[in-house]
């Protein structure tokens, strides 16, 4: 016990361990994963019923509706990101773990994206059919959704960490995140519209990619700092 150098697990083991545990929990409680997905699917299928089946109108509004629904579904799922850990004391255990907190926060965000962002991307082609989106545009839409949901999960983790100690923090969380999420929504929806209109859309993809990379490099640190503050 008095050996000065005990074998410390490496930082990747912390990353995988948090991601793995959250995926395991999601597997055991599939309802938490399916709720945002149902919300996404319902908004996207109800909208054409309400505005009518005119082809021109659906083609025009499709990218926007899909993107707004994806954004709201992600916001809906963010609230629970740290809540369970806060309630059962695991968050305290993460805060006193010898692993760097940003890495653990990144592990949790990774699991969140795999259980919320990725399913949205996978069902989106089916929903795009409702809006008569041409098949050539579908891969572009999926790519924007991949990049966009990565940014949203990462940015959302900051808000989730800040509001974790508050009861009913959902409204506040949405307010905090929306300004940061706006560029993602605008870039995502417009890129898909441009692609549908046979216009040049690559700029949008690059910009979304840059936004995702910037979020990836900054958000884990902000999340870690926010977790420490809200747990004082």
């Amino acid at each position, binding site marked *: 016990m*008095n050996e000065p150098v005990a074998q410390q697990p490496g930082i990747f083991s912390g990353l995988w*361990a948090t991601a793995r*545990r959250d995926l*395991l929990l999601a597997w055991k409680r599939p309802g938490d994963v399916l709720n945002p997905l149902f919300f996404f699917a319902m908004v996207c299928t109800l909208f054409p019923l309400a505005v009518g089946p005119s082809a021109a109108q659906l083609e025009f509004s499709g990218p926007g509706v899909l993107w707004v629904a994806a954004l709201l579904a992600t916001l809906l799922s963010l609230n629970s990101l740290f809540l369970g850990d806060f309630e059962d004391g695991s968050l*305290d255990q993460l*805060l*006193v773990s*010898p692993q760097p907190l940003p890495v653990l926060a990144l592990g949790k965000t990774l699991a969140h994206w795999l259980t919320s962002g990725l399913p949205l991307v996978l069902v989106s082609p089916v929903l795009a059919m409702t809006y008569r989106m041409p098949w050539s545009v579908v891969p572009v839409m999926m790519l924007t959704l991949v990049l966009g949901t990565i940014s949203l999960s990462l940015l959302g983790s900051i808000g989730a960490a800040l509001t974790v100690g508050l009861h009913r923090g959902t409204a506040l969380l949405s307010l905090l995140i929306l300004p940061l999420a706006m560029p993602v929504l605008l870039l995502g929806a417009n890129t898909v519209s441009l692609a549908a209109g046979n216009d040049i859309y690559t700029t949008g993809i690059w910009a979304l990619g840059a936004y995702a990379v910037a979020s990836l490099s900054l958000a884990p640190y902000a999340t870690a700092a926010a977790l420490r503050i809200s747990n004082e």
Partner: protein
Amino acid sequence: MTPRLTADNLTLIRGERCLFEGLGFALNSGEMLLLEGRNGCGKTSLMRAIAGMLSLETGQIFWNDVPVLKQRQTFHGALVWLAHRTGLKGDLNMVENLQFEKSLRPQSDRDPQEVFERLGIERLRRLPLRSLSAGQQRRVALARMLLADVPLWLMDEPFTNLDREGRRLVMQLVEEHLAAGGMCVMAAHQDVEINAPVTKIRMQ
């Protein structure tokens, strides 16, 4: 070098209340620090401050004479915290919960099977923790503590939910840990009988 935990002139104010002022202690290998006092007197807050989760008004906590906040990861690698809330996942079973902990902290060379048997939880391996009683869950948290290879144990009300035999077991485990050169900070409102050098802090 033997580990050493010291604190100097600690003051903590929460809201309008001063929980403690000018508090200091020194804890060496093989010793125990016992925090006593009624409910709400700041035992848990002091514990959280020692763990580096609360910022203090004044004073600093040192691990091996270096401020804890300057070497947070090293310090956290040398402690386990048995908090009031166990920090275990109710949906996962014991093995899955302990597996997670294994990826975060250095593990001792104790045989997990022996630890489980000693704590009387070896038959609960495959059950999700939410189906266990509160006392059994606390025993799983104790197993997590025993399996980690760390000198410092922070125990916040470790006797909660435990039966008489369980309380005796905890005291025995702490004694063994101290005898092996470990150290322990414990907050408790019951009588604690431990055969080791104990420093008591009575909180107002």
